[in-house]
Structure formats: structure tokens, C-alpha cells
């Protein structure tokens, strides 16, 4: 899009259109934005381009990466060794100064992601983090009582499984590659992606198949459908 003001106002962003009725904080932000443009710190339209960039990203990207890794061992190896390159293979452009690392859940290890210092999150892939991820409660407790925190999300990690918490407070952003749940042997990639929620990619949940009591680490043996 070209960066003229006229274009921007015609741009159809539901709910994020510049608005004369916006509150005083919005007015202040607009004033700061105008000053930054005036001082050539930002170019006209930079803020909108960044909003568009972020709005175009969602946990669906992460679900696609996981589903492909479940059906394609070569892709899985690539995802674990170079997440950025693997994402690009699926058309997800995560280029930028930060690195991405995917950590794999196994029958022995369950991974959980947090950023204690702020809210570092793989935004270039998943978009914006959920509000709870930024809460003081999650950020402080995920590091020192991760099992209790996951229990509150409905995820009980068996005692013999190692819980690995990753505090992503520097230049690397983390994604969890969950285990493929039993009972999904006949499913195609698209349906598999449908099982992978945002919370699975952070590690506070695991993919579940309705009617199959499984998915949590340590319950890898398929149980009969009830």
C-alpha cells in the first residue's frame, strides 16, 4: 500500500480505523506518531504496515508447522534445526533480527514457554500473545511452579516426565512442538493442524482428540475410544 494519509483512512481495518472518537490515550499515541513522522524516525504508514504485518499472523501458522512436522520427518528435522527456514518453506516469513527455536515434547520431556522479563513471544509466526501470557501471575509462577500453573490450564504432567521451562528473555523466541496424539493415525495434515491450539504451542496444553483419553506426555499408549 502507498503511504498517503488518504489511502490509510480508506483502508478497511475493522475496529482499528483511526477514529475521531478514540479516547485520550489513542489521541496521545496519534500525536506521538505524528511527531515521529515529522522527525523522520518513522515514515508515513510505518505503523499501519506493522499492524497489517501483525494482524496477518496467527496461531494457525504454528499449527501448520506442527502438522507438517507430524507427517513429514524431514520437515520435522528442519523445523527443529532451523525454525525460520522451515517456516519459510510453508510460506511463513519470520525474517527479522530475532531467532526462533522449536523445542520438542517427547515421552520424557514436556516444554513450557514464558518470558519473565516482559512478554517475548514468537510474534512473527503466531501474532500477538494472549493477555494471560503477559500477566504478572503467569510470568512469575511459570518459572517456579510450572506444574501447578499447567494444572490450572487442565494439564497434569505425570511425575516421571521432566518439565523443561524456557524463559525466552533475550533474542530467541520459542515454539513447542507437541506430540502427535494417539488416535490420529488416519488423519490428514489439515485435520491434524485443527488439533493444535495456540496453548499447545506455548506448552500449557497438548493436542487432544475427542473420545481418546490421551495427548498428555506419558500417556502415549492409545486408550480405546469410549
Amino acid at each position, binding site marked *: 500500500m502507498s503511504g498517503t494519509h488518504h489511502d490509510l483512512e480508506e483502508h478497511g481495518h475493522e475496529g482499528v480505523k483511526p477514529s475521531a472518537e478514540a479516547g485520550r490515550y489513542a489521541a496521545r499515541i496519534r500525536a506521538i506518531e505524528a511527531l515521529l513522522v515529522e522527525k523522520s524516525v518513522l515514515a508515513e504508514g510505518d505503523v499501519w504496515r506493522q499492524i497489517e504485518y501483525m494482524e496477518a499472523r496467527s496461531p494457525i501458522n504454528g499449527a501448520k508447522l506442527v502438522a507438517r512436522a507430524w507427517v513429514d520427518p524431514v520437515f520435522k528435522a528442519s523445523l527443529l534445526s532451523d525454525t525460520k527456514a522451515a517456516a519459510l518453506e510453508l510460506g511463513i516469513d519470520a525474517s527479522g*533480527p530475532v*531467532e526462533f527455536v522449536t523445542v520438542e515434547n517427547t515421552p520424557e520431556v514436556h516444554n513450557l514457554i514464558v518470558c519473565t522479563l516482559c512478554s517475548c513471544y514468537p510474534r512473527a509466526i503466531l501474532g500477538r500473545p494472549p493477555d494471560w501470557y503477559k500477566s504478572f501471575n503467569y510470568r512469575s509462577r511459570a518459572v*517456579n511452579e*510450572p506444574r501447578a500453573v499447567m494444572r490450572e490450564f487442565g494439564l497434569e504432567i505425570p511425575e516421571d516426565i521432566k518439565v*523443561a*521451562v524456557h*524463559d525466552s*528473555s533475550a533474542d*530467541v523466541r520459542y515454539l513447542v512442538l507437541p506430540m502427535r496424539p494417539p488416535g490420529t493415525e488416519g488423519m490428514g495434515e489439515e485435520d491434524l493442524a485443527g488439533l493444535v491450539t495456540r496453548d499447545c504451542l506455548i506448552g500449557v496444553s497438548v493436542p487432544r482428540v475427542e473420545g481418546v483419553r490421551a495427548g498428555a506426555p506419558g500417556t502415549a499408549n492409545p486408550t480405546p475410544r469410549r
Partner: protein
Amino acid sequence: MTPAKFEPGDRVRVRADGRPGHVRTPGYVRGKTGRIERFLGAFKNPESLAYGGSGLPEKPLYKVGFRQTDLWDGYAGRAQDALYVDLYEHWLEPARKETL
């Protein structure tokens, strides 16, 4: 950047500095001993970037692993539970070799 000083498996102690300002080393690992898991690359120094600096020279960044029971008194999880934090080299010093 200078060549990375530590290798995976090295025991390191996180400096216990109470440095003011913008740092990316969480307080709860300062003074604690952990293990280098992997080298993550070199990145511009956030302690300089935060104040309008160039961030140069770039600083080596490592993923450092800690036993949860070494970090928290009365940790309620399991002995095998671990916590990993990404730390810049200038916050790390060699620690005595010991078996995990």
C-alpha cells in the same frame, strides 16, 4: 564478536551483579550455577541498544540450563525438572567442574 568462550556442557555461574538499568538477565538466576546447553549466536547487546547505543560489539548468547531445585527453595516439582534461560556471555563466569 570474539569467539564464543563456552562450550555445551561447561558449568557456568551467573554473575550476581545488581546492575541497574535495562538488562536481560532475570534476577532469579543471578549467582546461580548452571550448564551451557548450546550457543545461540551473537546478538547486539541489549544493554546498549536500550539506551540508543549501537549494541556493538555483538555478544555471544547461550542457552543455559539450571536444575529447578537449585533455583528455588522448596521447589514443589520433580528433581529432574529444569529451567533454561538465554544469557549473554558477559554475565557468565566459569564454575567448578562437577558431575550433574
